[in-house]
């Protein structure tokens, strides 16, 4: 087990924005209390917020070999029902205010959370090394989850602790959801070193966030590209943040100019700005750009974490050895997850990836061994840090709107959805917003006369974008 709460017994593990302070000894006690109500290894849905109750649900699961499937507490209700039908969890751990949404009986409650025993009992067998299920950092409402093993989580946590040089003196303020792989990695790593989590659901555009961060001397925060765009807009560089030491960025490629700006700020103010690379399929992290070279190498992604390895493959399937040549980025390491689950039966599956991951990103490497992401092989966008598959989204729309002609394209943080019937524009957009839980500004639905296709009937996305975007 990567966590030893006894070792840090009198350290503060958590301070939340209700001013509640919890030591590691207390967290251990809470974890044991909750575990008593879940007698055996089984599947539990954990509806997450950045609150103490949510955290206890997660720590209890991981420490007691209970398999948690992590979801956003604000998830669309229909989706929650569908996931429950597909995976049949024994329990659901959720904010007490939402307990009416789940069928079953409340067997325990505390910390504003309820444990609901569902009518199901061990419906689907669980593979012995399966630890955790996370959405594929996308949220297209598909029932696809990444299967993470205990070894995955432990190895990735150890690598991250090592390259970020984390110690018990850290106080990260939560800026990302716990059900999101990047947000969860912040929790995993800091609990492993006896540091203090500053738990809040507030965001950087709220005054309360900054007050909380300053009051409790936050030493680090994390963000996706959109977070850094907001910070830039808020003239973050003018703020006095004496205790802040580290800013980490992942969840998509930051605009190179912003990378340079934050790296410059970090150098001038004696802080670290760490650009990182990862995905739920690799537990959380695959690469990072050491902060010492963040400014010289602005726009670059970095190198593999300790214990991992990157390599590039060309169109013929050959490994590229020369610097500057673009190929698909592959990663190998103990943190490459077991595979996906699309339904309850898949929870019994073993390791399907065997430690190797095709990232779907196109990259090149320089003479110093530093990688840069230059494009994508697979059709997906990163929307506010979430990977959203374009083909999956098209399928989702077509399933919900039978007979519709549609095509999805666009750029990060802005999906273009092309339809051929004007009256479909509004319903499609409303549907996507509801199903993904993403802000409406992420979706631009455009009505076109017809979708350009090749002779085989495949949509010509490039042409479509040139014509209308």
């Amino acid at each position, binding site marked *: 087990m990567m966590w030893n709460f006894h070792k840090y017994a009198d350290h503060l593990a958590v301070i939340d924005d209700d001013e509640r302070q919890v030591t590691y000894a207390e967290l251990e006690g809470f974890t044991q209390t909750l575990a008593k109500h879940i007698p055996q290894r089984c599947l539990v849905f954990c509806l997450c917020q950045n609150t103490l109750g949510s955290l206890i649900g997660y720590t209890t699961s991981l420490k007691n070999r209970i398999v948690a499937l992590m979801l956003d507490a604000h998830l669309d209700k229909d989706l929650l029902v569908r996931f429950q039908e597909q995976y049949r969890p024994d329990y659901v751990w959720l904010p007490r205010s939402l307990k009416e949404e789940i069928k079953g009986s409340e067997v325990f409650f505390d910390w504003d959370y309820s444990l609901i025993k569902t009518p199901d009992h061990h419906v689907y067998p669980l593979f012995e090394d399966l630890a955790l299920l996370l959405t594929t950092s996308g949220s297209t409402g598909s029932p696809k989850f990444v299967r993470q093993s205990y070894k995955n989580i432990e190895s990735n946590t150890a690598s991250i602790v090592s390259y970020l040089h984390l110690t018990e003196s850290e106080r990260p303020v939560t800026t990302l959801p716990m059900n999101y792989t990047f947000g969860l990695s912040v929790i995993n790593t800091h609990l492993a070193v006896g540091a203090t989590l500053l738990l809040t659901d507030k965001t950087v555009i709220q*005054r309360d966030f900054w007050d909380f961060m300053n009051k409790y001397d936050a030493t680090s925060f994390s963000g996706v590209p959109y977070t850094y765009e*907001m910070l830039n807009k808020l003239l973050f560089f003018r703020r006095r943040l004496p205790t802040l030491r580290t800013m980490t960025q992942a969840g998509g490629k930051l605009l190179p100019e912003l990378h340079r700006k934050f790296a410059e700020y970090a150098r001038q103010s004696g802080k670290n700005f760490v650009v990182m690379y990862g995905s739920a399929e690799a537990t959380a992290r695959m690469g990072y750009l050491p902060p010492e070279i963040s400014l010289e190498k602005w726009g670059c992604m970095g190198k593999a974490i300790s214990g991992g390895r990157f390599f590039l493959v060309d169109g013929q399937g050959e490994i590229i050895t020369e610097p500057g040549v673009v190929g698909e980025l592959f990663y190998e390491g103990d943190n490459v997850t077991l595979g996906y689950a699309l339904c309850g039966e898949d929870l019994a599956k073993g390791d399907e990836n065997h430690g190797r991951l095709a990232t779907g990103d196109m990259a090149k490497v320089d003479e110093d061994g530093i990688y840069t992401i230059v494009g994508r092989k697979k059709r997906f966008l990163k929307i506010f840090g979430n990977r959203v598959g374009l083909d999956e989204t098209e399928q989702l729309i077509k399933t919900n709107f039978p007979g519709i002609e549609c095509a999805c394209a666009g750029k990060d943080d802005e999906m273009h959805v092309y339809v051929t019937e004007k009256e479909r524009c509004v319903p499609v957009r409303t549907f996507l917003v509801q199903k993904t839980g993403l*802000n409406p*500004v*992420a979706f631009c639905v455009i009505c076109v006369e017809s979708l350009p296709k090749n002779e085989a009937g495949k949509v010509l996305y490039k042409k479509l974008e040139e014509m209308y975007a």
Partner: protein
Amino acid sequence: MTNEEKYIHAFTSTFEVGADEAKTLQFQGVPAWDSVGHVSLIAALEEAFDIALDPDDILDLSSFEKGRKILAKYNITV
């Protein structure tokens, strides 16, 4: 458009709500007014009134009503 109409329009167009609902809105009161929506609202207001809001005002603009008071600092009466 009057200033008031422009002000209301910034909310109705950003959050896709009617004018009556717009007047009662506050941050996180509707799903669309999350942190992403907040940035869109600020952009809409800045464009409508041709101003650049101070970061402190961006943080404080947490409801329709508060926004009125903040715009007054920029000599805009809505």
